[in-house]
């Protein structure tokens, strides 16, 4: 999942990294195919080189040492509000077929069945970054027909031009990366579609674990396995498997 996420980072991108797994994906990208990418962190940091030590959060001391910029959050948000952020990552508890994300409430917000932690910077990234990617564990209860609450809007109701019509600045989600597959959106937005299935898993398994009638791309293929360089970077930046071993439950 981390290696696949890292491939969404293009060389030269300014990436809004955020918390958790994307921190590792950024480190992997920077050490394999994207050596000139830069990372932004809403705590108030810009970096080029990934941190030298293990990070439990983006605010850990190794992420500050050697930073390109240590500042206040609103300065980092200024860059994103100007459309300067190429790619963002957002985790979610629920995602729907149009890429809308819920990280707030399961059930009625006034009396929720589950109270999730909230937006953090998620809604900001969803609306303001040029493109973004969701990382989520592939389960029926997480990939749902319609999210109970739109914390971070994707392609809204899926109709053409929904984002532009509603004034959302960036292009929206381009992919949902799950523990089973990579799902991609058409360039103009709309509904997500299975693009590749991870090694060891099948299209049927993906469909069974999705809460709607998920579309499958005509040229669906297998997700490329992690390369040696990607694996080496993962081992270097997550030596004890803190993120990669338990990434599913920490969503």
């Amino acid at each position, binding site marked *: 999942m981390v290696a696949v996420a890292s491939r969404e980072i293009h060389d030269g991108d300014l990436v809004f990294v955020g918390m958790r797994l994307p921190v590792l994906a950024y480190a992997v990208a920077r050490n394999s195919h994207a050596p000139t990418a830069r990372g932004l962190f809403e*705590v108030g940091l810009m970096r080029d080189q990934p941190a030298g030590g293990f990070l439990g959060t*983006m605010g850990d*001391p190794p992420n500050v040492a050697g930073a390109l910029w240590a500042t206040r*959050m609103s300065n980092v948000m200024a860059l994103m509000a100007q459309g300067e952020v190429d790619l963002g990552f957002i985790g979610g508890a629920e995602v729907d077929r149009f890429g809308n994300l819920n990280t707030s409430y399961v059930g009625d917000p006034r009396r929720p069945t589950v109270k999730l*932690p909230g*937006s953090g910077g998620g*809604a900001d990234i969803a609306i303001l970054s040029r493109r973004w990617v969701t990382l989520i564990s592939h389960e029926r209860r997480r990939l749902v027909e319609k999210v109970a609450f739109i914390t971070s809007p994707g392609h809204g109701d899926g109709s053409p031009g929904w*984002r532009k019509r509603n004034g959302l600045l960036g292009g929206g989600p381009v992919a949902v990366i799950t523990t089973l597959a990579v799902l991609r959106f058409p360039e103009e937005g709309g509904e997500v579609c299975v693009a590749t299935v991870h090694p060891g898993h099948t299209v049927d398994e993906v469909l069974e674990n999705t809460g709607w009638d998920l579309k499958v791309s005509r040229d669906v293929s297998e997700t490329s396995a992690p390369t040696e360089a990607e694996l080496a970077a993962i081992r270097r930046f997550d030596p004890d498997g803190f993120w990669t071993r338990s990434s599913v439950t920490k969503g």
Partner: protein
Amino acid sequence: MAEAIERFVPDGATVAMGLALEPLIPFAAGHEMTRQRRRDLELVGPISDALFDQLIGAGCVRRVTAAWVGNVSEGLGHCYRRACEHGIPRPLEVHDHSNFSISLALWAAAWNVPSLPTRALLGSDILRTNPGIESKDGLVHVDAVQPDVAIVHVQRADAMGRAHAWGPLGISEEAGLAAKRVIVSCEELVDASVTLSDPNRILLPETKVVGVVHEPGGAHPSPVQGYFRRDHAFYRHYAERSRSVEGFNAWLEEWVMGVSDRSSYMKRIDVDSIRIRHQRLAAPADFGDE
């Protein structure tokens, strides 16, 4: 700390904390509020790594105005969930924000205007649940949020309240400027000649600061650049213990209620395992004027 909380954080106060996000969280101040059994607080902050969860679990909180409440390295906040889902130990009102919008709400109060416009939150259901955020004419207007008191933990400060903080600052400046009062807790209490040698590094105007508390380790388990790493194991331990009400109450007794102050608390921490040992000094800045 006990005196600062006693004097400046009454029941019902709106308190901003955890303003630098994951680093520099004033846990010692939060624990003191809990020991003094504060009630009906409104907590204001961006992400609150476990501190808000603890105060909610202890029954001190009426409302949370924040972008995210949980445990950053471990996930959900169990006390937060229990309060929202079951009203345990008491019902909680939530004013949802994003990181950007809580920053804007505080800048609005800092600049003494009723609201600030943004493109953030267009299309988000946060507009439906937060009465202080509305969409109008293609923009989102975020109402001002004014804390009664903002509490910041910093690396060093002098007795006049000039605080030097370094590393990422999150929303510390707008929260401090928006608040009626600021309490500073610090790793080191230094002479004014140190703080005034670098006025650019002073976080907030001394006119806002009503109390300075010398509280080494006051941010534990959050990190303090140059002083302490984040104590990941402590956060994990808290997440496990707080899964049940009984577990949380036992944790609270062990680490907050049964502890007299921060120095006793720090005696129970393996400080050597988290202390930062290697200096990485910034180049001095020349403020020469003649």
